[in-house]
């Protein structure tokens, strides 16, 4: 009994420290990598002078932010202005708790992991909006409003994309296996992150990206929007709104937003890893093998280390994609952003859910079901990617621009003949 309590306490301390240090460390390292990756893509050096290859730069940055004067404009709404960074940052820290870095390094193996994560990531909106309102600055206000609209809109497809994966766990669940599933007990999948990982371990390469690639893509796009990263960085669009809701913040308060943003990126990547890339599974992450080889304690240590390595390595892929997207794409406009979410992503994910749900009713073997689901989803993905230009009308716009058709409002809806008539008009 006392050994159990001691074990729980040790587990708590280890996972708490790991989560906290990982968040802080990851944010710092990411800020460095962000610059380095951007610099690499943009044909320049990036941080260079402090430490080898500029490695000490993030440390200095953090030091500068900590030592900066805590400035505040005289007309701010004090309670909101002071609370906003904390409201933004606390959910980030809390969401780290449920992430299963490895079987042991899981702060709380909550049975409601996905819901918990989604709920916490929605709280960020409140922090951003408080910052926007509390700063009493027009740019901040517009930024806050944009952020609220954007985060709420993208929350929906984000959840719906995860639902597809959750439904897969119910298909794989033992009650649903076989040609004639017991429909009374079947359909009860798991929304616990640990169980979602476990569902992808049998066989160990059965990652949900193979069956739900569309879910991953949609989830990742929504993740970009949730974290206010390019091309969805409208709330802090530097060229339009100076810094959006961050305009009036400096020093430590700004640093908390900064940490929160990078922490959010980590969480989005981690959840994508858990749900779609099989979590900590990977070559060598075999518990039985290491325990048999090295004995209980050291075997567990080695196994967990390898598992955490795979987890972080998979996260790194997503984080790298975050950074590369930022250097590649321009920014959307507010109405285009909304249209993309409500008319593009939400119907798509709903259709995906419908498709996945229909699988339950097919009276065949689980493997056949998964293959059917996979093929259908890959098809949907290709249709989405290649039909994207048709969906947004960009293909036609580009074609018209190359043909030199005047861009009067609604020109993209013209027929070729009408457009030709326009082309000659008005040229002296």
């Amino acid at each position, binding site marked *: 009994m006392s050994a159990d309590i001691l074990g729980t306490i040790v587990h708590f301390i280890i996972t708490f420290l790991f989560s906290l240090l990982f968040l802080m460390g990851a944010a710092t390292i990411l800020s460095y990598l962000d610059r380095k990756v*951007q610099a690499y*893509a*943009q*044909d*320049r050096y990036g941080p260079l002078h402090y430490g080898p290859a500029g490695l000490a730069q993030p440390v200095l940055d953090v030091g500068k932010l900590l030592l900066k004067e805590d400035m505040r404009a005289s007309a701010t709404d004090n309670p909101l202005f002071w609370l906003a960074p904390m409201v933004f940052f606390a959910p980030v820290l809390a969401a780290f708790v449920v992430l299963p870095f490895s079987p042991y390094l899981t702060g709380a193996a909550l049975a409601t992991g996905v819901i918990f994560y989604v709920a916490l990531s929605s709280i960020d909106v409140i922090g951003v909006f408080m910052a926007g309102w509390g700063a009493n600055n*027009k*740019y901040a206000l*517009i930024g806050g409003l*944009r952020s609220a609209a954007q985060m709420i809109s993208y929350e929906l497809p984000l959840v719906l994309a995860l639902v597809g994966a959750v439904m897969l766990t119910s298909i794989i669940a033992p009650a649903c296996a076989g040609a004639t599933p017991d429909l009374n007990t079947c359909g009860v999948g798991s929304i616990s992150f640990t169980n979602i990982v476990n569902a992808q371990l049998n066989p160990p390469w059965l990652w949900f990206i193979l069956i739900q690639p569309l879910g991953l893509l949609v989830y990742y796009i929504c993740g970009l929007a949730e974290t206010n990263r*390019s*091309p969805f*960085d*409208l709330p802090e*669009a*530097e*060229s*339009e*709104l*100076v810094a959006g809701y961050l305009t009036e913040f400096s020093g430590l308060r700004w640093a908390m937003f900064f940490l929160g943003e990078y922490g959010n990126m980590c969480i989005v990547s981690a959840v994508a890893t858990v749900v779609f890339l099989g979590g900590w599974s990977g070559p060598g992450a075999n518990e039985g093998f290491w325990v048999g080889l090295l004995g209980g304690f050291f075997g567990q240590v080695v196994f967990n280390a390898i598992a955490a390595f795979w987890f972080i390595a998979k996260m790194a892929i997503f984080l790298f994609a975050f950074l590369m997207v*930022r*250097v*590649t*794409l*321009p*920014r*959307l*406009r*507010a*109405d*285009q952003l909304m249209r993309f979410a409500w008319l593009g992503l939400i119907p798509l994910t709903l259709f995906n859910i419908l498709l996945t749900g229909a699988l339950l009713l097919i009276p065949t073997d689980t493997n056949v079901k998964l293959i059917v689901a996979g093929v259908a989803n890959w098809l949907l993905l290709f249709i989405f990617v290649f039909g*994207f*230009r048709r969906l*947004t*009308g*960009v293909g036609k*716009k*580009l074609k*018209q*621009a190359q043909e*030199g*058709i*005047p*861009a*009067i*409002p609604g*020109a*993209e809806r013209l027929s070729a003949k009408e457009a030709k008539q326009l*082309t000659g008009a*008005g*040229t*002296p």
Partner: protein
Amino acid sequence: MTLQTNQGDPDAASALYTEDATGLRSEEMILNMGPQHPSTHGVLRLVLTLDGETVMQCTPVMGYLHRGMEKTFENRPYMAGPRYIDNADYLSPMINEVCYAGAVEQIMGVEPPPRAQYIRVIVQELERIASHLVAVGTYGLDLGAFTPVLWAFRDREVILDLFEALSGHRFTHNYMRVGGVLYDLPKGWIQQCEQWATRFVDKNLPELEGLLTGNEIFVSRTRGVGYIDPQQALAYALTGPMTRASGVNFDVRVQRPYGAYREIAVRPQLQTGGDCFARYRVRMDEMVESVRLIREALDKLPSGPISNRSPIALRPPRGETYYSVETGRGEESIYMISDGSEYPYRAKLRAPSFVNLQILPELLRGNKIGDVIAILGSIDIVLGDVDR
């Protein structure tokens, strides 16, 4: 100013409120964009009246960079003029200098020797490329793409290096003289220029274009935004890429060729789209065309003197003239009056940015805040040119 008085007067301010049937009160917001703002390209200030995110009215306020350039000209000898006009359109100083020197030459009725004229064409086209690179790069920055501006500056750096080798300065060159240019091309300059041109056209420009032209987000942000009718372009006296993107074939180099442009034919780059995307395309196409002109000028470059050796104390005869050149932004002209003294009696600078900016309130009405930046960026103003 009406907007300010509205704020001070409570009755007038309350007129900004509107109430709908349900009793919901909505208020128009006045947003001061600039003069310290990342993407007003300097110190332009736009007083925007917003309904939500939609722009209802826009009042540009300028003059924060006014240096009294025309007054300065009146009090400096003719030979000192090029040094001051450098700062007008600070992204194309070489072309400004050609404008000033050309105006004085036109009053005097002289022409620089052929070699000087060809060198002028080469540096003008290089400057045009440098100016367009900044325009396209910062346009990407305005739309939220960080990379194009840095990729554009790779080539601009080389151009500035070439100018440094030529004139000794990277930015305010002070290179043109009345009746010629200051220095001849240094040794190896032509080879370097040709190497750069090859690399630029074959590698760097397609890379830059690949980043923007086919990009869905870029196209949807620019196509159909800020449409200018050809008639509107003429009525507002727009020049440069602004008017050529609307299908109006106006280019000073083509219509009234000056210097060696009389021997090197310029193909005007036209687009009929009339929107931000067309303006972007015109700039991209003009860069390719400029490289062609540079190559042609380098091939035809005659030998001989580079200057007429005009006296420092230059006294043009009495008279007046209107001399135009084509900068990266449009027609830049000087209306110069000489009273026979060593100093211009009046030198009025017709700045393309200033005239092009005039259409901005017309274009912005009804657009979103994001489009304010997209449209302003596509006009490609230089505040040194607007305020002079």
